[in-house]
C-alpha cells in the first residue's frame, strides 16, 4: 500500500506542472529612480521574509529602474523588461510572481496592455502567473495634481523620493483616466488583464507619537497628514485613495482584514514588513 502511494506521488511529481514549475519573484518599486531598491525601497528583512515562500529562496530579483520617467519610456518599462527577461533567462524561471508597489503596478500594467510595443514584452507576459500589487496608484492621486499645479517649467513642489517628475505628472487623476481608457487594461469598462492582478489596499494612516505602530516604515507628522487629507477621501493610505488602489484588477484584501492587530498600512508601510504583511504575502506564494 505504501509503495502504491509513493508510486502515485512520484507520478504527480513528474507530471504536475505546478510541482515542476521553477517559481521566481520580482520586486518592482514605485515612483523614483532606484539604484539599490533592496535597501532603499523595500528593505532586506521584507524581501528575505517574503522569499521564504519560494521553493528556492534565491529565485528572486529586485528591480532597479528609473520610474521617474513615464511608464512607457525605455528607462521605465524598457528597463523593467530587460531586467525581468534577464532574471527569467538566468534563473530559468517558468512561473514568475511580480510584487509591485505604487506606480510599479502601472508600469507592469503597461507591459501587459501593450504586448507588441516591445519585443521584450511577450516573454514576460507568458511567464507571469500573478501580480501582487501593493497599494497600486491605478487611478492616480489628487496629490499628484496638487504637486504639479502650475507650468511644468515652474514646478515648485515635490513628491515621494524627489521633485516632481514625469511619473508624477502621469499619476495625476485626469492623466491616469486617459491612460486607463486608451492604453491600459484592467480598470472598469476596459478589457480585463490577462493575468491575476490582485491589490492590497492601504485604508488609513495612524500617526501618533505614543503609538509605536506609527513608526513602522517611518514616521509621518500628524499635522502634515491632516493637511494632505484635504485632497483625499476618508479611506486612503496617506497618498492614494482606496478607490485608486482598487481601480484595476481585483482586491486581494483591505489591510485591516488581514494585518496583525487589524492595523492599517500607510503608503510607506505597504512595502515593509509591518503588521505581518510579509508573512501574508509569503503564505500566498
Amino acid at each position: 500500500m505504501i509503495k502504491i502511494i509513493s508510486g502515485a506521488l512520484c507520478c504527480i511529481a513528474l507530471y504536475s506542472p505546478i510541482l515542476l514549475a521553477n517559481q521566481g519573484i520580482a520586486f518592482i518599486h514605485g515612483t523614483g529612480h532606484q539604484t539599490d531598491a533592496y535597501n532603499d525601497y523595500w528593505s532586506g528583512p521584507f524581501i528575505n521574509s517574503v522569499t521564504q515562500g519560494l521553493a528556492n529562496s534565491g529565485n528572486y530579483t529586485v528591480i532597479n529602474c528609473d520610474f521617474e520617467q513615464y511608464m512607457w519610456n525605455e528607462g521605465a518599462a524598457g528597463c523593467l523588461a530587460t531586467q525581468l527577461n534577464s532574471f527569467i533567462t538566468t534563473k530559468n524561471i517558468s512561473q514568475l510572481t511580480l510584487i509591485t508597489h505604487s506606480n510599479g503596478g502601472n508600469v507592469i500594467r503597461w507591459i501587459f496592455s501593450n504586448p507588441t510595443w516591445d519585443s521584450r514584452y511577450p516573454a514576460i507576459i507568458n511567464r507571469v502567473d500573478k501580480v501582487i500589487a501593493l497599494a497600486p496608484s491605478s487611478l492616480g492621486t489628487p496629490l499628484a495634481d496638487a504637486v504639479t499645479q502650475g507650468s511644468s517649467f515652474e514646478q515648485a513642489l515635490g513628491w515621494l523620493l524627489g521633485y516632481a517628475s514625469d511619473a508624477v505628472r502621469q499619476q495625476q487623476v485626469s492623466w491616469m483616466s486617459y491612460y486607463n481608457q486608451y492604453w491600459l487594461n484592467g480598470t472598469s469598462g476596459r478589457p480585463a488583464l490577462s493575468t491575476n492582478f490582485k491589490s492590497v489596499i492601504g485604508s488609513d494612516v495612524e500617526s501618533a507619537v505614543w503609538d509605536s505602530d506609527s513608526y513602522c516604515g517611518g514616521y509621518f507628522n500628524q499635522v502634515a497628514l491632516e493637511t494632505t487629507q484635504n485632497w483625499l477621501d476618508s479611506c486612503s493610505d496617506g497618498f492614494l485613495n482606496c478607490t485608486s488602489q482598487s481601480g484595476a484588477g481585483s482586491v486581494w484584501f483591505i489591510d485591516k482584514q488581514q494585518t496583525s492587530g487589524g492595523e492599517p498600512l500607510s503608503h510607506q508601510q505597504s512595502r515593509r514588513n509591518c503588521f505581518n504583511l510579509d508573512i501574508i504575502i509569503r503564505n500566498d506564494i
Partner: protein
Amino acid sequence: MKQLKSIVILSLALSIIAGQASADQSSPNELVSVAAPNYRIEHQTVHFSQAIAKGSRLGKSAQKYTNISDEFWLEVSGQALNNGINLHVSQPQALIRLTAKRQPGSWLPDNHAINPAAIKIFKRNKAINNAFTHKVTKEQYATANIFPNSSAVQLSKNAGSGLFQLQVTDSLSPHQRYLINVKEKGSRYIQRLSVAKQNFVKGRKISFNLALISDDIPLTDVRHQAFIKTPLGENHEVILERKKEKFVFDMPHHEQQDSYGALYELHVTSQWQDGGTQVRRDGKFAFSLVTPTASIANLGSITAAGLPLSLNVASEGRYEVSGVVYGLNKKGRYRPIMRSHSAYFLTSGQQSIVIAFDQEILNRSSFKAPYQLRRLSLKDQSRMAVLSTR
C-alpha cells in the same frame, strides 16, 4: 465556400463600419506626414494573442471624465505677501498652502519656504485671534515626503469665511514667486468640468461641460477663463464659446511639440460674485491631440491565420493593429476567442500587413470558423497615438 467567405468579409466590414462614431473612433481622411521621432522605437514585427476567458470583460467605448474642484490657486510675489494680499474664502476651516515657486532653470533654495508662524490673517484690517487650527512647517511636510518648500495654515472655525488679508511678516525676497493654494474641502461651491472623451483629432473643435455649482444648483453670471497647457508646459489662452449646454474651443496655434505620450491640459478658472461673496474655482482635464499619421485602407479575407489588411501610412513609424477574434459556438452564435495584436515598423505609402492569430489558441477553442474580427483598433506606437477604434 466562396460565398461564405464573402459573407464573412461583408459582415466584418459592416461590423467595423457600423461602429458607434465618436471623434476618437473616427479615421481621419487627411493624413499628415511628420518626421520619425528621435527616441528608441522597436523595429521588430511582434504578434501577440491572448485567449479571452469566458465571461471576461472586453471593454466599452470611451467613458466621460469629470473633475470636481473645491479649490483655487493664485500666484503672487514675495513683496505682495509682505504687503498683504486679499483672499476670498467661501468655506470656514479652509486650508491655505504657500509654496515658493521654482524659477526656470534653477533649483529652489530651501530658505524660500515661508515660516507659518510668520503668517498673519486679518479681516477688515483687524487681526484675528486664534485664526489657525493648524500650522504646518516645511519640516513637518518633509516627514510625509510631499510638498517640500511648502507650508500651510488651516483657518479656524472662529475665523469664518469672507474677505481676508493674508500677510507674511518675515522679510521675503521681493521677486520670488509663490503659489497660494486655497483648498475648501466640503464647500457648497464646486466647479464641475466634464468631457465625453480625452482623445481628439488635431484641428477639430473640443467641447466639454462646465458649471460652477452651489448646493447642486448651477450659478449664473459666472466668468470663465481658460488656457491650454501644452505637454512641454507652455500656456496658451483659449477663447471659450458657449453652445447650448456645452463650451467649445479651438486649439490655439502653437508650435508642433513632440510630446510622446504626454498630454495637453485645459485649465479653467471660474469666478462668481454676489454682493460681498466672491467664489473662485480652478479645474482642469487632460487630453491627447492626435496627428492622423495612418489609416486603415482595406480589409482582406479573414482566415484561421489572420486578417490581412492594408494601411495608408503617411508618416514612417511603428503601427499596431489589434482586434477581438470571434468564432461560432455549437449554437451558431459568435463568441470571443482571443485578442490579437500585430505591430510593424512601416515606411510611408500603402502597406499590406496581417493581424496574425494564434493557432494554438484557435485549436484549443471550441469555437469554429467562419471567424470575425471586431473592435478593430489602429495605434501609432511611435507617437503614442490612438488613431482609430471601432
